[in-house]
């Protein structure tokens, strides 16, 4: 009885020292978030407000998208609409080709990851340089992000130091001091910014009332990416549109507090138009399934997500299995749910990665019912043909026993016979409980057989 997630998690957990470090690192992020959340008296009101704004916006998305697009066009931006990942990649490639771009610098965007944009452009001769430090590290290492906000946190500074030495970024072998490595990365990226012909950003928010694209970073790399080249492309999912600045004020107080435990990100940049008269600003609004998800009565609320990543930090399973144990490119509670919306035949193996402890939905700044949604996906696995056969057999057997009182009575009364069975037989490979547990000792009599004596005792 195993799943794609449980197999990878088992392999991850073999290195005890590493997994303890991984768990403690992400629990540290949760603790920093708690310090911020408990520092604001109105935190729970903010969560309620943020959820209400998103519910409203997502359920009136058509109006806000049009308003956003009109205002962005008035500002002088060129707005493109991409129905899916393929169209998005084509649009971006078309813009870059039209400007004879050889090198694109980009700030962090999970949307471009979702669409597989980097390999698409690279296959067509365009060099793509990630400029967020974490993203740059994993790009150089040939890895995918293991977390949506802290994509390279699974690596140690020694691993990063060795990588930088290999790639010629660091010139002092053995110096793995994080400040030094960051300095070397900055020098190397500076050159990339200056030699790129185009810059790309994602977007944390799109403001319908003004047509702004709002990007929150800690490194200023989005600003560098858009201040050096004359061509700026912003890629943004449809659900990132919010009505106005008043709404932004609510989310802005929550995003960094939840995501990284900071009161605000170091930089919050608003982009409205090209930076110079001979520059261009393109906005690509990407659907890629989102307009279908709005219509899903059980799962549409995932579109409220602001991608803070805190559900991963609080998830006891994520912390002990790592980002790569999930088959979808977004891991953790939100990733389980988004992966199932994307393709249940590919991502049903992640649905097991949840104890239904509900910490994620208590921590979520926009109150997405993440754990409840996992429960709902589990109910649908049979329909998708991805349910575990052995688990179904076990549940069938249980419901027969529970449905027939005589059978239940016989089973519970004879359970104690298991106590006498040889240890090796009970703890064989066929009993998954015995992998991590000693078997419990069953009592001679179940409660329903003792109860009569209790009553008698009381009467006497």
């Amino acid at each position, binding site marked *: *009885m*195993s799943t794609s*997630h*449980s197999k990878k*998690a088992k392999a991850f*957990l073999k290195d005890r020292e590493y*997994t303890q470090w991984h*768990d403690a690192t992400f*629990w540290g992020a949760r603790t920093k978030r*708690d310090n911020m*959340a*408990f520092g604001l*008296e109105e*935190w*729970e009101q903010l969560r309620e407000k943020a959820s209400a704004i998103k519910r409203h916006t997502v359920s009136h998305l058509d109006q806000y998208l049009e308003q956003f697009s009109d205002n962005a066009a008035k500002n002088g931006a060129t707005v493109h609409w991409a129905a899916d990942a393929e169209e998005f990649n084509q649009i971006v490639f078309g813009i870059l080709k039209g400007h004879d771009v050889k090198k694109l610098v980009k700030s962090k965007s999970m949307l471009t990851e979702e669409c597989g944009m980097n390999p698409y452009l690279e296959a067509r001769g365009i060099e793509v340089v990630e400029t967020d430090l974490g993203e740059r590290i994993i790009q150089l290492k040939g890895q995918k992000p293991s977390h949506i906000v802290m994509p390279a946190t699974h690596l140690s500074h020694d691993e990063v130091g060795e990588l930088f030495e290999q790639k010629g970024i660091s010139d002092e072998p053995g110096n793995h001091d994080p400040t030094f490595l960051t300095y070397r990365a900055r020098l190397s990226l500076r050159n990339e910014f200056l030699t790129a012909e185009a810059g790309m950003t994602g977007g944390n928010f799109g403001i319908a009332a003004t047509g702004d694209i709002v990007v929150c970073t800690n490194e200023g790399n989005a600003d560098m990416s858009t201040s050096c080249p004359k061509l700026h492309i912003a890629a943004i999912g449809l659900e990132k549109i919010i009505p106005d600045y008043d709404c932004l004020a609510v989310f802005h107080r929550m995003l960094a507090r939840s995501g990284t435990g900071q009161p605000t990100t170091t930089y919050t940049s608003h982009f409205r138009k090209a930076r110079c008269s001979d520059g261009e600003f393109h906005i690509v609004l990407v659907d890629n399934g989102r307009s279908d998800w709005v219509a899903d009565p059980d799962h549409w609320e995932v579109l409220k997500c602001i991608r803070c990543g805190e559900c991963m930090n609080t998830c*006891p*399973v994520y912390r*002990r299995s790592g980002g790569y144990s999930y088959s979808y490119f977004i891991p953790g509670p939100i990733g389980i749910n988004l992966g199932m919306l994307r393709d249940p035949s590919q991502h049903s193996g992640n*649905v*097991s*990665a*949840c*104890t*239904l*402890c*509900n*910490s994620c*939905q*208590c*921590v979520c700044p926009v109150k997405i019912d993440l754990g409840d949604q996992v*429960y709902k996906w*589990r*109910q649908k696995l049979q329909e998708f043909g991805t349910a575990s056969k052995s*688990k*179904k057999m*076990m*549940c069938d057997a*249980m*419901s027969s*026993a*529970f*449905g027939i*009182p005589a059978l*239940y009575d016989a089973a*519970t009364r004879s*359970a104690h016979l298991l106590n006498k069975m040889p240890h090796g037989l009970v703890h064989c490979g066929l009993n*998954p*409980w015995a*992998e*991590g*547990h000693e078997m*419990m000792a*069953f*009592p001679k009599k*179940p*409660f*329903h057989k*003792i*109860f009569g004596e209790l009553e008698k005792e*009381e009467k006497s």
Partner: protein
Amino acid sequence: MLPFQKKCSRCHILVVGNNIPSVLRMFVNGLLLMRVGLLIPCYVDAVFPEVGVASWKLLRHLGLDVTYPEGQTCCGQPMANAGFERQAVPLARKFEERFKEFDYIVAPSVSCTAFVRLNYERLLEGHECTTAAKAMDIVEFLHDVVKPQAPLGRFPHKVSLHNSCHGVRELGLSSPSEQNIPSFNKIKDLLALVEDIEVVEPERPDECCGFGGMFSVEETAVSAQMGLDKVQRHIATGAEYVTGPDSSCLMHMAGVARKQGLGIRFKHVVEILAAGL
């Protein structure tokens, strides 16, 4: 309504308010007004009958009119959490028949209570469902309805409190560590009525222990690791016992502790409340 009576906010039946002495209050509430159905979940019945015994003795000690309806089996939670919710429907129907006559359905299990309360209305769609609103975990029932004031048992030990997830985040037995709301803990409040006990909480006081029903046999490695981490945090408090409102969490942690040779004991909170009764 008599002057000392008030309506219970949960179930709208008449109970007696706090403004009269507790003995009289128990008497009037217990003998005249409330009928309590004792729900002993399948795994408690089969593995931890002592928890059932303690629940019965405690409720009777408090002067309540308690009945243990015969023929109980399971509420359906294990199958539903595993993804086979429809198999819980026939069990929910039987449950409704068996328990509908009571004013309160009281169980020494937060996860079974939460399952009934949060899911039965949906599972019983088209049928009468009275039990969802009446199901209470024994901790919240004692804390919110019975409100015992006099000392209960005596338990001269240091005890580490295990705040089970469904108790914290579905039934509201304590303030979730994620939420910026005034801090409270109903289990701690009740344990304050036990003589000579010392109650402590582990670091990360409401992180999941990794049981999760079928999770523990499907995600064996993560489940065992979570269990071990949790047990070690309980041990680090210096406690002799771990106590909590759900025997399934305790069963999981006890199994992990024994496998790893870790010596700490486990007792359901009702066993401690009823100690010596």
